């Protein structure tokens, strides 16, 4: 009988053959198992990025944009009214002296040179967030990539808001909510806490294009879009935080007073200094489109006549 005549060596050979076959079968089974979901295409955005100020240098560097220059903004009547009442002296009241730049504005402010850092989960080693540091007065941002939801609408609003990101066609799409009531430009153009900002971070080699759109139902006739270009700048050190000592700069200000221009005040310095029709400098969706250039031409003779 084979079972009784088999030698120990043939027994071992048969056992090795069986083990090898089982291993091969297991490998085949594993190879047939569904592959884990492929990660979305992503780009490495980490590193230091330097702002190119080739657009709007005069507006972005200090001391900032001129009063009543609302050109390029799709402001509605409420925003215009609020902006025209804005008096730059308000920046001297103690509560405003150390204000950071809000997320709606900080990426378009003076500079910014910033660093994009990675937050890595210590266990999975997966990228769970990007950080943006170097923004004015440390209103640094975190862009969560781990799928967490935005907080309740009743949650606290912050200078940097709350940002989440998803990879979309090789770009990082970022949604920011919970931003403070603040400004879109440093000359009083307001932004409400109900605004939502959508940004796309697109890398072209050593360039980073950031496209942002602020959709603010309170102050804008249509969403406001801006695009900014940054250059990869390894070794860059971002600007230090400005040390601010709150000082009594307005000794004659009574408690509760808020520096402002009265409603209906007509600021005309910007229009006058550049020979522009006043109404053209007040912004509005209509003024952003090419056909407005024709309307502007029609308004200019009246302006010159003044």
């Amino acid at each position, binding site marked *: 009988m084979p079972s009784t005549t088999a030698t120990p060596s043939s027994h071992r050979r048969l056992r090795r053959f069986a083990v090898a076959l089982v291993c091969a079968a297991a490998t085949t089974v594993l190879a047939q198992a569904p592959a884990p979901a492929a990660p979305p295409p992503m780009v490495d955005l980490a590193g230091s990025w330097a702002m190119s100020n080739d657009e709007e240098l005069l507006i972005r560097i200090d001391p900032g944009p001129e009063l009543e220059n609302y*050109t390029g903004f799709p402001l509605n009547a409420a925003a215009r009214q609020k902006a025209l009442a804005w008096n730059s002296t308000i920046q001297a009241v103690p509560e405003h002296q150390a204000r950071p730049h809000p997320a709606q504005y900080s990426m378009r402010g003076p500079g910014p040179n910033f660093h994009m850092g990675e937050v890595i989960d210590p266990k999975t080693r997966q990228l769970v967030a990007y950080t943006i540091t170097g923004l004015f007065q440390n209103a640094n941002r975190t862009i969560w990539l781990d799928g967490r939801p935005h907080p309740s609408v009743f949650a606290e609003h912050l200078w940097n808001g709350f940002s989440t990101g998803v990879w979309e066609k090789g770009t990082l799409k970022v949604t920011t909510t919970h931003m403070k009531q603040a400004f879109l430009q440093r000359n009083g153009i307001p932004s409400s806490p109900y605004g939502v900002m959508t940004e796309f971070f697109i890398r072209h080699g050593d360039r980073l294009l950031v496209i942002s759109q602020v959709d603010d139902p309170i102050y804008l006739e249509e969403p406001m879009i801006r695009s900014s270009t940054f250059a990869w700048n390894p070794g860059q050190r971002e600007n230090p935080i400005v040390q601010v000592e709150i000082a009594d700069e307005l000794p004659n200000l009574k408690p509760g007073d808020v520096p402002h221009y009265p409603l209906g005040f007509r600021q005309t310095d910007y229009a006058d200094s550049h020979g522009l029709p006043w109404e053209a400098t007040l912004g509005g969706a209509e003024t952003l489109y*090419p056909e407005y*250039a024709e309307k502007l031409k029609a308004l200019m003779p009246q302006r010159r006549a003044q």
Partner: protein
Amino acid sequence: MSRTRCLAVAATAAATWLATVSLATMSPALLRAQQPASPPAPPATPRAAALVDLTGNWVSLVTEEWRWRMTTPPRGDYISLPLSDEGRRVADTWTPALDGSCKAYGAGGVMWLPTRLRVSWEGDQALKVETDAGQQTRLLGFDAARPAGPRSLQGFSVAAWEPMGGAPVLRSGTRVAAPPPAGGTLKVVTTNLSEGWLRRNGAPYSERSTITEYWDRVAFPNGDDFLVVTILVRDPLYLLNEYTRSAHFKREPDASKWRPAPCRQS
């Protein structure tokens, strides 16, 4: 059943199963190998291989540098432009009588002006970009070997699709298996230019300029669809360093607002 016989039966069963699975998975390849080789497929045309659809009607939204774009700034207003001394000298020769010149509508300037764009395919090898402001036509050709022709305002543009994204790199340094690129950008390099203006007040770029552009398309949650063109101008004559700007154009449903306005030949 003895232990040896049990092993033998198990081995036979496993071998049979493995052979079946292997045949099931390999047979298509084996069958293909038996067939006569088919001729290699021709390379996809740039049109067929497009990573993003840039065609359509687009309108510039002038939300940046409004005063310098919607009006002609006065002579000497060169803020934001990295003009060299020679560039400034040339710019200062401009007079208001030159306003409206086609020099403002060359490839280095026209994308920054308030305009509408009509982007369409010119055959399978080139994208045609028409502007209603200045009535210019740019040809973004994918065939770099085609004749460049004489110098012109729109120059000689060579286009190429660039996939965006890629497989993430793990901490170990290995790259995760990549899905095919889900998106991309159009890179355009333009040379063979005649002299033009970066700004309507005569701030110049020279014929030695090279303009590199990236054409991206993004869609916002509110339904807005934008074409964003990043423009990098390098001019060893009139600029001190690379000049960068990005223009954004909103998609329009049709060409009903197309208003052709010619420029003046200077």
